[in-house]
């Protein structure tokens, strides 16, 4: 039987067929794309109510709030005459008498309109101590006009202090970099450059680093605890797996506040954790677990464990056990098989779980407030303080903006390294 090689016989035909097939394929894929586009449009139409709701209730409020970080018109609105008078000022020394007179007139207007307090607060955020000086001056100006008003201004030393007028001038610009710079422990110096604030006032960089460190520690801890557990659940007999998954999910359904409170009961000095460790003789003196970094990480790890575990588990379940057996039968040692067959397949689940936990940890607020010590407060605690206590929403917006940028950047790196389509969330 002489076997003709198909290649010898059919080569021209094959080539012709292939180019025809290519053309066909192109038109088919174009048609497919068109069909897909139509589908996508239809599904987008279905999602429109959701998108509108998201934009109205989520997107726009966030943008409005974040815009406060760079847009603060309080001072510019309050001091229109001063803004004009300062237009020609060199920025060196004191401005001329016309600026003093304009400021006096503006202050009187504010007092009449009842906005002097807002102006005082806004100036005070940039120049501590300005608040009472503005209010004091306003009171002095009540009975003074023209030359007398000018003298009243000059009689308050604050208005002739070196840092007062540059602060006012930067404040008359509604678009401000002040809050964003402050959120990074930076400020403008007299020469017009950007410099670090003195070390005893620098705080936010440290808090951002602390937040990332705690988030990374918790992510690592949940991975170390969650990976073997996910493996166990994925490979356990049905009944046992069901019990284990309920054991993981039950705390997941409990309020985060309740779980945090439960940890304070366990971790306190005369609490169960210390009692137990003393009883088994691991420690001889009671540990300070409450109000400490280690207590915070323990509690956060417990709360975040399901977030890391579930994506890993859902991927593990799809890997048939026969693959590993096949690897063994081809001569791979257990570790090699695990490393080359198993890990690459669960990797997307691991990354998804870790990313979920890491990003959620960046926003932790209640747990650090209740379990963390003075030096364990995360950036959200500071944002909350500016919103609720200081009423400085501009500063809160600036810190939120920086946090958002860092988070998006990390997410971008994740997506770049891994490819978003490979992420398997659940």
């Amino acid at each position, binding site marked *: 039987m002489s076997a003709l090689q198909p290649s010898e016989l059919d080569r021209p035909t094959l080539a012709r067929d292939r180019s025809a097939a290519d053309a066909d394929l192109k038109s088919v894929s174009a048609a497919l794309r068109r069909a897909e586009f139509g589908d996508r449009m239809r599904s987008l139409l279905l999602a429109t109510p959701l998108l509108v709701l998201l934009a109205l209730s989520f997107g726009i409020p966030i943008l409005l709030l974040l815009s406060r970080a760079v847009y603060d018109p309080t001072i510019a609105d309050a001091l229109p005459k001063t803004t004009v008078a300062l237009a020609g000022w060199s920025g060196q020394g004191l401005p001329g008498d016309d600026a003093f007179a304009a400021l006096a007139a503006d202050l009187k207007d504010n007092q009449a309109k009842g906005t002097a307090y807002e102006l005082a*607060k806004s100036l005070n955020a940039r120049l*501590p101590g300005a608040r009472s000086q503005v209010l004091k001056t306003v009171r002095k100006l009540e009975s003074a006009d023209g030359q007398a008003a000018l003298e009243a201004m000059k009689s308050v030393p604050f208005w002739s202090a070196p840092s007062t007028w540059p602060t006012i001038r930067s404040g008359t610009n509604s678009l401000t970099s002040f809050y964003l710079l402050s959120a990074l422990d930076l400020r403008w110096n007299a020469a017009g450059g950007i410099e670090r604030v003195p070390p005893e*006032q620098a*705080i936010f960089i440290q808090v951002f680093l602390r937040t990332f460190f705690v988030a990374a520690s918790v992510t690592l801890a949940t991975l170390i605890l969650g990976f073997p557990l996910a493996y166990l659940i994925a490979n356990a007999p049905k009944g046992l797996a069901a019990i284990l998954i309920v054991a993981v999910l039950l705390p997941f359904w409990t309020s985060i506040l309740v779980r945090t409170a439960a940890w304070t009961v366990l971790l306190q000095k005369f609490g169960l954790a210390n009692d137990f460790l003393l009883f088994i003789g691991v420690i001889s003196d009671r540990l300070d677990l409450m*109000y400490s970094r280690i207590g915070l990480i323990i509690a956060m790890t417990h709360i975040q464990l399901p977030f890391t575990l579930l994506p890993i588990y859902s991927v593990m379940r799809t890997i048939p056990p026969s693959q590993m057996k096949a690897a063994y039968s081809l001569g791979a040692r257990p570790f090699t098989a695990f490393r080359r067959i198993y890990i690459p397949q669960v990797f997307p689940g691991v990354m998804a779980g870790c990313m979920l936990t890491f990003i959620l940890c960046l926003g932790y607020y209640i747990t650090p407030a209740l379990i963390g010590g*003075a030096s364990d407060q995360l950036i959200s605690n500071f944002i909350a303080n500016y919103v609720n206590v200081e009423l*400085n929403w501009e500063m809160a917006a600036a810190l939120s903006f920086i946090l958002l940028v860092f988070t998006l950047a990390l997410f971008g790196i994740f997506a770049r390294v891994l490819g978003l389509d490979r992420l398997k969330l659940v």
Partner: protein
Amino acid sequence: MKHLRTRLIALAAATACMTIAGAAFAEELSIMASGGAWQDAQRKAWFEPFAKETGAKILEQEYLGDLGKVKAMVETGNVPIDLVTVETATVLQGCDAGILERLDYAKIGPRDKFIEGSALDCGVGLDAYGDILAYDPTVLKEAPTSVLDLFDTKKFPGKRAMRKFPAQNLEWALMADGVAPADVYKVLATPEGVDRAFKKLDTIKKDIVWWDAGAQPAQLLASKEVVMTTAWNGRIQNAIDTDKKPFKIVWNNQILEYDMIAIPKGARNPELAYKYLAYISQPENNAKLASYITYGPVRTDAASFVAADALPKLPNAPDHLAGAYLVADTEFWGDYGEDLVKRFNAWLAQ
């Protein structure tokens, strides 16, 4: 099932009718306070008698004392409260941010009859309380004689609890460093003064346990986690009287502060709110609170109305003002508060 639903609807309708009818007869005054033993005391001393006298209905709410919530209410134009109790520093902030009403004292009472600093533009004083030192004599063999003994770790070794907040701690640090009470705020207004205060705090930093909530100091003392603690006098007195704890209070070098009450901008019933403010500011009514919690009146002419057994426990009782004391300077904290809180947090983290 259907039967049940019909009954529920009928019930809801009936309740709604009753509420509407009730509103037609009794005016409602909604007061938001910071809860706990202090709100209980206000209920007995003021809410209930006021309601009886005027026929108004008092709706109570609780909050944590943070004005962010009130600011959000005022900015959205939906203000379901008529009165809110606040700390002095918070009154200034709320006043500056334009979320508290500027008060008309003609409707409340003579402004000059209030202790200095307790009648502010946007808030009127409810009571005076003391930041004091408390200890357990069964633990400390030698009794501290001044709040400034906080800084003497040689004579009084062991952990001491202090509030996680710069106010009071910086003042005490300066006084412990030799600054006269009258000069404290002058010194603290300079960068060198702030450095000096923090340097003094540095000397005991490793011995400090920080507290946040007013209930913590008594707990920390009771669990023997600390040998002494700063506290609000009412909380410690409550632990002594109600929980029969053996604690003692040191009044020398106490810092006096005021609790305040304010009307948020856009409140629905400001006239009734003013009526309430006028009611509690009458000297005999102002003195009543002391019978239920050991905080003193803010009217200078109220002392004679205070119940005899309550007087010796008040922070502004003559005996307790015999030693050194300092009146907290609200204006100072309005000026430097935000900056010092930031500096304090940076210092804590170091």
